[in-house]
């Protein structure tokens, strides 16, 4: 088969880093070409070059046999290359339809034809399996999963020859990924070429045709068959070593005293009557669909959201003190939207890591910066953030490394209970194993963990006990060893509703 | 004081042209005169600055050193400080606020630099050698008398009298209002409504148009300032009102031309002439050169000179027109 797109010798440097130092990549019409690599390997950078968002320092791009030179995103769009970026790139203040057609609106003499746009958007959303999202609603009112769908609709709206998807499944739940795959198959059947980036290897097996692996800004292997290449080989190509993609052994010792007790917690319209406890050294997993209310439960426990019911840490009530009191009592939350909710993008890595423990470094308000730096450096090593430069602005880190920075914040001593909401979203396989070990290590130190993850194997493999959440209620509670993936999925989906939306009675 | 409506114009005080005062204009030793005034964002103050500069240019023995005009007291202090540092021979200062600038004027005087205080007065007599300025209280009195007489003639009982001030926080505004109220009291009248309008055309329009709504029938209106008066008149014309007499203030050429029109509501204006700046520069020159005023017997320039506020009406406007400042 002939190559539709060839990128050759692509080099791209940012001040202080060389993100790409000679990448080759080729794409055929009608294939799904997976791009793999560790966090920071340069995947996003490569596809931003393909999308015209970055200009390469060196290298050539050939599309359909002709060399192209792109000066901006418009050029890429005109050439038929549509991109779903890793970081959601939607405008909150505009409607779904307006976002989908932003930059190529349906218009007559500058006047927007809203009805036509809404109709076309509804068709695209239906094609993506989400006819329930109204095209006229403001995008800011959608949850992350909904936004991801809109981003996909936007890419589809371009009638592109090449569609690039940078971790589109990171914000999606199991069943929605299937919907995405269905659409990808439709596209490839029409001859569209898809570049697919994901850290979930099982997805690669399922949807991918060929695989290109990047390592440290170079092509480590190109065009491997996606289904037949052994996992071990792919992982070692990515990481340069053998990683056992397994969960750390469960704790043998008995759990300690209760660190967290939640009694009859409820937020009207979202969840109600949630009660559970977490013991020292225990990992409790919350399994459920996107939209089942897990994030809200965690936020309510953390005091970030007004809720009825009572929460105790080490027997002390959290009460009305909100987050500040929760943190003082020893809680920590790694929220699911790292950019919006966790990171100071402009600030350095070190400052981001120590943000949650400033009182530790202060005497009468005065900062002990030496100790602060030492702790930050230690955590950077502990979770292996690359590059391990404490002074680098977090904004310039790759997505997965940013996620690690969020976790690192709460690894600094003094925590009693960690609430981890999708802690491995966007984290590469190698790092993932390390993170699992880190989390397990925490519990060995006597910390309790509440783990939320949309990846059922992760919940089952890491947690000691699992709570299954469906439509805002705990429907099942069991030891993780007594559950398997099938059973959890059954429990989770018992009530058909699997949309990323949920009715919420007014605000 | 000469506040009677019929007082004759005093050419010497109102004209920027050098007056025929005998030996005073004879060239003397070279002197540097520093000059500081508020920002010329207003016709009257702009005229002050222009008059001062024009007068200084007329003398070969005067080096004129104006500093940045500003409405910020803090900056005016620095400006005067820089003039003191430059060791000028005399200072002409129109302070944004006499009280606030007093300290620095005092410092100048203490440093041996004679200060001619223009218009807004320093509270401390040690701070200046000579004060020359208009009569704000007298201005109010003149306006009050004109309106009082006019209303008495028409036999209006319990008239609606409206007053539009300039910047309300300035002492000069308060003096004008007091004079106005005092004069009206002698006729048994009082001010019905009073608003301030920041001295600009546009604020004049908006305040006046609201006031005209508030009072469906007005008998007399005194507007402190002919600059903002242009806006006040625009609002009056827009509302199509003409049932009252209006009196202006300061004596701009615009106002005088308006007074000449038989159908205008503006019947008179009471002067507060920016020509005082010309006189101030001349005084500063005389003081610096150690001369007295040749028309006076004394060997020294007087300590204080208060200009009379005159009332310009259709009858005498011809005589004043050449002296009016373009706002």
């Amino acid at each position: 088969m002939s190559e539709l797109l060839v990128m050759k010798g692509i080099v791209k440097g940012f001040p202080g880093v060389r993100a790409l130092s000679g990448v080759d990549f080729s794409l055929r019409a009608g294939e799904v070409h997976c791009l793999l690599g560790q966090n920071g390997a340069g995947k996003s950078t490569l596809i931003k070059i393909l999308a015209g968002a970055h200009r390469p320092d060196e290298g050539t791009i050939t599309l359909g046999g002709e060399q192209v030179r792109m000066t901006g995103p418009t050029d890429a769009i005109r050439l038929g290359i549509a991109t779903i970026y890793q970081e959601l790139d939607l405008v909150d203040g505009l409607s779904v339809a307006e976002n989908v057609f932003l930059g190529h609106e349906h218009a007559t003499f500058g006047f927007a034809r809203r009805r036509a746009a809404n109709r076309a958007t509804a068709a695209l959303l239906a094609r993506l399996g989400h006819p329930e999202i109204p095209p006229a609603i403001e995008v800011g009112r959608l949850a992350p999963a909904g936004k991801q769908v809109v981003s996909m609709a936007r890419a589809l709206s371009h009638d592109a020859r090449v569609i690039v998807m940078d971790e589109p499944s990171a914000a999606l739940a199991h069943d929605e990924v299937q919907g995405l795959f269905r659409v990808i198959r439709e596209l490839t059947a029409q001859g569209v070429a898809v570049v697919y980036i994901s850290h979930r290897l099982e997805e690669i097996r399922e949807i991918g045709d060929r695989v290109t692996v990047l390592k440290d800004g170079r092509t480590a292997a190109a065009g491997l068959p996606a289904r037949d290449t052994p996992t071990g080989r792919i992982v070692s190509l990515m990481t340069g070593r053998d990683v056992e993609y397994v969960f750390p052994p469960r704790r043998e010792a008995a759990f300690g005293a209760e660190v967290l007790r939640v009694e009859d917690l409820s937020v009207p319209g979202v969840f109600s009557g949630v009660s559970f406890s977490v013991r020292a050294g225990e990992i409790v997993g919350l399994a459920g669909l996107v939209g089942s209310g897990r994030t809200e439960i965690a936020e309510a426990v953390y005091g970030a959201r007004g809720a009825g019911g009572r929460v105790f840490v080490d027997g002390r009530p959290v009460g009305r003190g909100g987050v500040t009191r929760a943190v003082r009592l020893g809680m920590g939350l790694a929220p699911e939207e790292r950019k919006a909710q966790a990171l100071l993008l402009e600030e350095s890595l070190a400052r981001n890591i120590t943000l949650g423990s400033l009182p530790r470094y202060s005497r009468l308000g005065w900062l002990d910066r030496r100790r602060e730096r030492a702790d930050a450096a230690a955590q950077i090593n502990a979770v292996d953030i690359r590059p391990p430069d404490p002074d680098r602005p977090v904004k310039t880190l790759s997505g997965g490394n940013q996620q690690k920075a969020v976790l690192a914040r709460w690894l600094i001593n003094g925590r009693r209970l960690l609430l981890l909401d999708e802690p491995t979203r966007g984290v590469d396989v190698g790092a993932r194993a390390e993170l699992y070990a880190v989390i397990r290590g925490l519990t060995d130190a006597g910390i309790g963990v509440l783990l939320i993850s949309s990846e059922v194997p992760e919940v089952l493999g890491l947690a000691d006990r699992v709570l299954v959440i469906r439509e805002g209620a705990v429907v099942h509670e069991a030891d993780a060893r007594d559950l398997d993936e099938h059973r959890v999925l059954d429990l989770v989906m018992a009530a058909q509703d699997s949309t990323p939306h949920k009715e919420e009675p007014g605000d | 004081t000469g506040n009677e409506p019929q007082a004759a114009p005093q050419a010497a005080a109102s004209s920027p042209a050098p007056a025929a005062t005998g030996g005073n204009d004879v060239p003397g030793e070279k002197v540097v005169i520093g000059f500081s005034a508020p920002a010329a964002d207003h016709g009257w103050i702009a005229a002050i600055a222009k008059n001062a500069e024009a007068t200084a240019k007329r003398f070969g023995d005067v080096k004129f050193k104006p500093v940045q005009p500003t409405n910020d007291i803090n900056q005016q202090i620095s400006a005067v400080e820089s003039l003191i540092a430059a060791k000028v021979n005399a200072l002409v200062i129109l302070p944004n606020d006499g009280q606030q600038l007093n300290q620095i004027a005092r410092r100048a005087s203490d440093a041996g630099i004679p200060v001619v205080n223009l218009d807004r007065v320093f509270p401390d007599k040690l701070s200046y050698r000579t004060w020359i300025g208009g009569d704000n209280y007298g201005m109010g009195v003149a306006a009050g008398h004109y309106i009082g007489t006019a209303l008495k003639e028409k036999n209006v009982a319990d008239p609606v009298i409206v007053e539009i001030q300039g910047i309300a926080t300035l002492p000069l505004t308060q003096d004008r209002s007091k004079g106005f109220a005092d004069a009206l009291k002698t006729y048994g009248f009082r001010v019905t409504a009073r608003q301030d309008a920041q001295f600009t055309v546009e604020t004049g329009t908006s305040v006046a148009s609201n006031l005209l709504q508030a009072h469906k029938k007005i008998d007399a209106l005194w507007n402190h300032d002919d600059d903002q008066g242009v806006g006040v008149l625009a609002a009056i014309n827009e509302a199509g009102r003409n049932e009252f007499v209006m009196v202006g203030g300061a004596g701009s050429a615009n106002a005088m031309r308006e007074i000449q029109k038989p159908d205008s509501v503006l019947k008179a204006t009471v002067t507060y002439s920016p020509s005082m700046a010309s006189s101030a520069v001349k005084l500063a020159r005389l003081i610096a050169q150690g001369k007295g005023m040749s028309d006076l017997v004394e060997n020294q320039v007087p300590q204080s000179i208060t200009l009379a506020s005159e009332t310009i009406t259709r009858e005498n406007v011809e005589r004043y027109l050449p002296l009016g400042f373009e706002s």
Partner: protein
Amino acid sequence: MTNHSIRRPGRPYTGAGLLGAVGRARHLGLVLALALLALVGLVTVPETFATTSNVVTVLALAATIGVITVGMTFVIIGGGIDLSVGAVMALASVWATTLATQSYGPMVMVICAVLVGTGAGLLSGFLISYGRMVPFIATLAMLVAARGLAERMSDRRTQLVQPGNSALVDLSSGRVLGLPPIVFVFAAVVVAGWVVLNRTTFGRRTYAVGGNPEAAKLAGIDVRRHTMLLYGLSGLCCGIAAVIIMARTTTGSSTHGDLYELDAIAAVIIGGTLLTGGRGTIGGSILGLLIFTLITNLFILNGLNTSDQLIAKGLIIVIAVLLQRRSLRSRT
């Protein structure tokens, strides 16, 4: 505190009807505040407040800043700010009333004002988008420079509209259907602004440019060009405002429009537009402006002095905003 990231933004299924209701409810606080002010007017000065002529006065007063506010709404939604509006209006009024310009008649004066305004706006826009200056600083520089130029041109005099050009003044003193034409100009600008913002691609892109410039750029929008045009639009509005102010005061002057920038920005923000850009409505801005204008009107009708006016104004602003607090829960 950006609640929105935690709040799970309700009802995906809201229909158009409901959406409309939400839109109206959004300005409920402002409408309430306005109603309250009107009530105060009816109680305290019943015989003057509710007259047609007073309503006309309020509208005519609102017209100048109103037109500017429309332009400002665009700029702020687009993620910028324009401090130069008052000064640019002054410059346009001065330029249009120079004797040279006036000799060509009122049409040319209007065209001159509009061109000067638009030109100044485009220049600010150019400095911001291509010169990469911070909008606050670039428009501050424009403010200062435009006032200086206006003073220089007019030699600090108030320039009267010549009797031969009184057609211009008739815009304010004339009556069409019982209203001064400037009120229609004001209304036309508001309607045009609304249409452009809500019904054209230019308007919708303005939200994108302000809300997420990076995303706008990736979607192929020429963010720089668009930004420049936004300031041009604001300048255009200043030019139109200059025409209104010339009609109302019969003059052009470098002192016109002092501090209009603050009033216009305040009206826009009280109307619910975020200073950070990406959100906002023309309707809200105009409601905000009317509140301010009505406050002044009420005070003068009641004969309050300025100091009391100021204190009361501060309190009223706080109350108006707290009234609509529920519909406006965001920082900056």
